[in-house]
Structure formats: structure tokens, C-alpha cells
């Protein structure tokens, strides 16, 4: 991959067979091109997402009526565990850093690739290896894990199912996540185009950068914790085993030292992307650029100190409870700063409602609901009542699905023209969004109410008094999944048969829109000189309007 032979690839779409060292599928599987790796990740993660959604739907079918008609309690345990493991470790944690961090970020900062292209491809295969281990764990040696995605000891030490391989899979996936994080931090420090100062970076890059630090600093802790569970199962070293003097509570501490920051790995990059979308669709500079950038760092750092709020009822000391509760309320502040700034960006803007912006707007609404219900759980007294109920399930689905999930969909609809060179149809996208949004709220607001009434999570059956609301929640979930189906079928159709996309369909001012659609194999012959901010819509350049860009291509 020497520099000289590459110049012929300028202008050739990144997915063109003519680009790269080898044609065909080998040219993809062996490619270190950041756009190809990002797209490969998107297909792998899309597949895992579909599998985990299917498990979720099966659970809602089983819960539609009281009694265990379709699946046994053990099968139900396996379903929610595998649903959680896939969604957390194979979908939501990796999705934005690997898909959009790879595909879009180098273009956003005016670079030609990531800092370590080969390491990037390697991390993709480590990711696939981890996924393969997780799937083998489901079907071998005792069967699918039934511990929940948290692998709490001592149950995970005693259950007969294949916990050792599942924990090893999590360790391997963590390694992949660390490598991605190292790549993103190094890329941001080393490969920004001339003139691209830190405060001229798009806020999506700030989001990815903050996330990458959390990936680097938090993931090793869960790595060693998973290895210890594995060693405990294989050799009985006793470190977490209460029968040998070990302390199960220490497991919870080590687990959440990673797994709470992991929530910020999930949400921070989505917040960054949303911060990019609001100015573009309001035709206005972002309100409070520096506040949003610094609040990302604040969330990344304070968010690393709140893990104990998962353990209020575990028997940890009251002092710890009070400190963790205080820090939990503190971390809500930078999140609220972002929300207020997004709304303020729209004020007196020239708002253009397009599918990516609909997803971005619903992100703000759903994330706010998730954030406010989080305050209920962060309060010590309320948590005693709400701990381990559907209220927690509703809360984190509002954050993770309503926030990160809708953020991913926003990003997908935003960069789709750059990824495929084609446009999806606008109306089906809007209809799909509306169905998914309505179904989502019918479903998860009911889940919140059920939790408030005392419905515990992870139960395969329930009391008759919950029956009508459980039925309602199931119907809501079917509507939501129908909306997702419309969204993805429309994207699929757009990818295969959509109209040709203009270079800059949304009138974005960030650098990737100055490149042709689909993105070329090589981004720039010479690094671009950056003179204006990412949300400066005055003048031409990347900020050209849709019509101008369309005419320019004729």
C-alpha cells in the first residue's frame, strides 16, 4: 500500500472493485481502508442486532399472557441473558465507534485513514472472534448462559451452563474495543488536517474522542474480572467464592467500575453525532460549542466514579451509598447542558425536517425521559422500591435504545448518501420513524409503569394484576419492531435501487460533504486546509446547498 500507486484511486468510490489491492470479497476482508472496515462492521453489527431483536420479540410473545405457555423458565433466563450480551457487547458498545468512528471520523478531521490501519482491521477480526466465542457458548457445554449479562457471582460460579466461554468472549470483545479506542485517540491527536484545531473539530469527533478514553481506561477492569470468573470456574481460586472466603461484592464493584462507564461508551458518541445534526438541520451554528465539548469530557470523567449506584441494595456501606448518589446527580448536569444547548441551537433557526433530524429530535425526547427516570433510581430511598423492577428496564431502554439506538439510526440516515452514493426514499423513512417512535413509547412507558407497580425484572411469569399492561407492552413492542422493519427495508431498497445522491444533500459544513458521494477510496490527495468552523454555513465550500451541489454534478 505505497503512496505512489494510490493516486489512481482518487475519485474512485471506496467500494469500487477498481480500488484497493485486490478485487472482490478478498479486497474487502483484507482491506485496511477505514471506510471499508466501517461498512464491514455495520453489516456484522446489523446481523447481531437483528438476532437480539428477535430474542426480544420472543420474550414479549412469552410475556403476552400470564403463565408459561411457550417457553420454560430456564429458556426465558437464557433469552434475556443472550439478548443482553448481544445487545450490550456486540451491538451498542461497538456500534458508533466502529461503524461511524471508522467510516466518518477520518473524513471529519480531514485525514486519509486511521492512525493504525492494520490494527484497525485486526480489531475487526478480534471482534468477530469474540462474537464467534459468544455464539459457541450459547450452543455448547451446558447451554446458553442464564446469569443475565452481568454474570453476578456466586450464581455464575454455580450454574451448570457455559459461563466460562461467555466470559472469555466478553474479554476478547473488550480487547477489540480497547484497540479501537487507542486508534481513535491516536488518530485525533496525530492526523487532524492543517488548521483543524481541537476547537474546530466537529462535536461528533469530540464525542468519539471522549468515548475512546473511556474504552481505554475502563475496559481492562472488566477484562480482568471476566478472566477471574473464568479462573474461578476452571481452578476454583476462591477470589469471588464466598464458600472459600472470597467476597461476591468485590465482583460487583469490579464489574461496574467498567460497566457503568460502558453506558457512557454507548451514549457519548451518539450525543456527539446529535450535536452535529442539530446545526445542519437548523442552519445555525451550534449553541455553546465549548460547553458541549467539555461536557463530553466531564461525562467521561465523572461517569467513571458513579458505579456504586448499581449496588445501593447490595449491602455496601451507607457512606458509599451517599457519595455515589451525590456523584450520580452530578453527572446529570453535563447531560442536561447538552440537551439545553441542542434546543437552544434550534431557536430562531431555519429548521428543515428531514429523516436524520427526526431521529435526532426523538433522541432528545427519549434520552430526556431516560435521564429523568435515572434520577429516580439515583435517589437512595426511591431505589429501594424500584431496584430490580421493570422501572430499571424501562429506564435503560429509554437511554440505550431511545438514545443510542435512535442516535445510530440518525447517523445511518445522515451519512447514508456518503456510504452508498444513493438516497433512500424520504416518506417511508418518516413513516418508519413514526411507527417506531410511537411503538417505542407505548412499549417502554408501559414497562416503566409496570415497574412502578412492582413488577420485578427477569421473571418469566407474573401476577394476574399485571396482565393487561403486559399485553399492552407486548403490542407496543410489535408496533416498534414493525417500524424498525420499515426503516431497514427502506434503507435496503435505497442501497440497491435508490436515486443517485448529491455530494451534499443536507448542506453540511463539515469536511466529509466536500467529498463526492459515494466517498472515494482515497479521501484527499493533499490534506485540506481548514479555515472555518464545522457549523459555519456562510459561503460555499462544504456548506453548498442541495441545489447547487446537485447542479454541480450535472
Amino acid at each position, binding site marked *: *500500500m*505505497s*503512496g505512489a500507486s*494510490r493516486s489512481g484511486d482518487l475519485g474512485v468510490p471506496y467500494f469500487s472493485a477498481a480500488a484497493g489491492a485486490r478485487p472482490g470479497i478478498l479486497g474487502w476482508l483484507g482491506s*485496511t481502508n*477505514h471506510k471499508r472496515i466501517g461498512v464491514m462492521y455495520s453489516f456484522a453489527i446489523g446481523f447481531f442486532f437483528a438476532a437480539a431483536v428477535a430474542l426480544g420479540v420472543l420474550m414479549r410473545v412469552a410475556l403476552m399472557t400470564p403463565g408459561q405457555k411457550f417457553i420454560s423458565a430456564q429458556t426465558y433466563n437464557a433469552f434475556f441473558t443472550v439478548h443482553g450480551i448481544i445487545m450490550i457487547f456486540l451491538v451498542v458498545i461497538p456500534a458508533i465507534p466502529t461503524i461511524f468512528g471508522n467510516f466518518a471520523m*477520518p473524513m471529519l478531521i480531514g*485525514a*486519509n*485513514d*486511521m*492512525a*493504525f*490501519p492494520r*490494527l484497525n482491521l485486526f480489531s475487526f477480526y478480534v471482534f468477530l472472534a469474540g462474537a464467534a466465542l459468544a455464539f459457541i457458548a450459547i450452543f455448547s457445554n451446558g447451554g446458553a448462559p442464564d446469569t443475565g449479562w452481568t454474570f453476578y457471582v456466586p450464581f455464575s460460579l454455580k450454574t451448570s451452563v457455559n459461563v466460562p466461554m461467555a466470559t472469555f468472549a466478553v474479554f476478547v470483545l473488550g480487547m477489540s474495543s*480497547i484497540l479501537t*479506542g*487507542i*486508534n481513535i*485517540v*491516536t488518530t485525533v*491527536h*496525530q*492526523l487532524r488536517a492543517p488548521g483543524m484545531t481541537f476547537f474546530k473539530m466537529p462535536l461528533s469527533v469530540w464525542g468519539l474522542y471522549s468515548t475512546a478514553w473511556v474504552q*481505554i*481506561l475502563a*475496559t*481492562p*477492569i472488566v*477484562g*480482568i*474480572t471476566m*478472566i*477471574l470468573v473464568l*479462573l474461578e470456574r476452571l*481452578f*476454583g*481460586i*476462591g*477470589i469471588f467464592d464466598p464458600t*472459600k*472466603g*472470597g*467476597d461476591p461484592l*468485590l465482583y460487583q464493584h*469490579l464489574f461496574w*467500575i467498567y460497566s457503568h462507564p460502558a453506558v457512557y461508551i454507548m451514549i457519548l458518541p451518539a450525543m456527539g453525532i446529535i450535536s452535529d445534526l442539530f446545526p445542519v438541520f437548523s442552519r445555525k451554528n451550534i449553541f455553546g460549542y465549548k460547553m458541549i465539548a467539555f461536557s463530553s469530557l466531564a461525562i467521561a470523567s465523572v461517569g467513571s466514579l458513579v458505579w456504586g449506584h448499581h449496588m445501593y441494595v447490595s449491602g455496601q456501606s451507607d457512606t458509599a451509598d451517599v457519595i455515589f448518589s451525590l456523584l450520580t446527580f452530578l453527572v446529570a448536569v453535563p447531560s442536561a447542558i447538552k440537551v439545553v444547548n441542542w434546543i437552544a441551537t434550534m431557536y430562531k433557526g431555519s429548521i428543515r425536517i428531514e429523516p436524520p433530524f427526526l431521529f435526532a429530535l426523538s433522541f432528545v425526547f427519549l434520552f430526556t425521559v431516560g435521564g429523568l427516570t435515572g434520577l429516580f433510581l439515583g435517589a437512595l430511598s426511591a431505589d429501594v422500591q424500584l431496584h430490580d423492577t421493570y422501572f430499571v428496564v424501562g429506564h435503560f431502554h429509554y437511554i440505550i435504545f431511545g438514545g443510542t439506538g435512535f442516535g445510530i439510526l440518525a447517523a445511518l440516515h445522515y451519512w447514508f448518501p456518503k456510504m452508498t452514493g444513493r438516497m433512500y426514499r424520504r416518506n417511508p423513512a418518516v413513516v418508519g420513524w413514526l411507527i417506531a417512535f410511537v411503538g417505542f413509547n407505548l412499549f417502554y412507558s408501559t414497562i416503566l409503569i409496570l415497574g412502578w407497580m412492582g413488577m420485578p425484572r427477569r421473571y418469566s411469569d407474573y401476577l394476574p394484576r399485571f396482565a393487561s399492561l403486559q399485553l399492552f407492552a407486548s403490542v407496543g413492542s410489535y408496533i416498534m419492531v414493525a417500524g424498525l422493519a420499515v426503516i431497514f427495508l427502506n434503507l435496503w431498497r435505497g442501497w440497491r435501487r435508490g436515486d443517485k445522491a448529491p455530494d451534499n444533500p443536507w448542506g453540511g459544513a463539515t469536511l466529509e460533504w466536500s467529498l463526492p458521494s459515494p466517498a472515494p477510496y*482515497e479521501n484527499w490527495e493533499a*490534506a485540506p486546509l481548514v479555515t472555518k468552523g464545522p457549523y459555519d454555513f456562510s459561503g460555499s465550500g462544504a456548506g453548498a446547498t442541495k441545489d447547487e451541489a446537485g447542479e454541480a454534478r450535472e
Partner: protein
Amino acid sequence: MSGEEKGGRVDADRGRIGMWLFLSTEALLFGGLFLLYAVYRWRYSAPFHEASLELSRAFGTLNTAILITSSLAVALSVRELREGRLAGAKRFLAATIALGACFLAVKAIEWGVKFEHGLYPGAKVLSSRGPGQTLYFGLYFTMTGLHAVHVIVGMSVFGWILALMARGGVDADRPIKLENAGLFWHLVDIVWIFLFPLFYLIT
């Protein structure tokens, strides 16, 4: 293509940043174990004291000396390489690998003695000594075991770099691979510098 630049200063800086970030993850990986050690040492201080008397300070001191000498050897190898003396760099690197092997051999003898005495997880002798000593040896085998895995990985990387040196892939103009591998080796050394007093000396 800037992502593929070979040799230049930018590339070396990039490699160095990546390596230091990776080393911080390694420090945190062991950090989790040190945290567990601290909690259990505080909770079971008397049994930890008794258990630590079972370890051989002579072997521990010997291994500390071996590992520090190996760190010196790899540092000298880096210096030789930077100054263009490839043969010297190879010699010191081979010495590093040999010292790593010595470390592992001593470690194997130590572990063997513990197994003979029934001081391993699951053994009747150890179980009869109560939870504190069980946890001490659980931590001992886990932490020195994970450290030994790192020694093996480091030696393998050095072996690969020796092969690269023979083929001209690592030389005075491109020392970054050896420098980074050396940094990794120093980290492995530093981890041992903490393990040695915690298990052998504090009683």
C-alpha cells in the same frame, strides 16, 4: 497516503502514543488484581502473614535480579540499535530472551514446590488452612501466572523482532518496534517490582 507513511518521524510518534495508551490498559488490568489484593490483605492480615512465610525469599530475590538485568539488557539493545550497531543490538536482545527464560524456569521451580506441598487452589492441605491462606495462594497463582503470561508474550515479541532484524525490518532508521517492545518489557518488570514485595517481603 498519510495512514501508511513508512519510517518518518510522524509514524514513530504515532506508534509511541499507541504503545503508551496500550501500556495504560495493561497497568489497569493488573490494577484490578492489586485492588483485590489490598482488600483481602486488609481483611485477612494474619493469615496473609503466615502464608507469605511459605514463599522462598531466595528464589524471589533471584528472580527480581534476573528480571531487572533483563530490562537493562533490552535498554542496551535499544541503544545499540539507535547507534547503528545491529550486531550488538541482536546480542543484547538474545540475552534479554535468555534472562526471561531463566525467570520462567525459577518460577516453574517455585510453583512446583508449592504444588508438592499441596498449596494450590482446591488442594486439601490449603483448604484446611482456612479462607485467608486460600485467598493468598489464589491471588499468588493468579497474579504471578498472569505476569508469567506477559513474560512469555514479551519473549515471543523479542523473538519476532530478532527475525525482523535479520531481514532488515528493524534497524537504526526504524527502531520503533524494538523501542515499543522494550517499553512493554519494562512494564512487565515494573509489575514484578510490585509483586515481589507484596507477596515475598511484607509479612
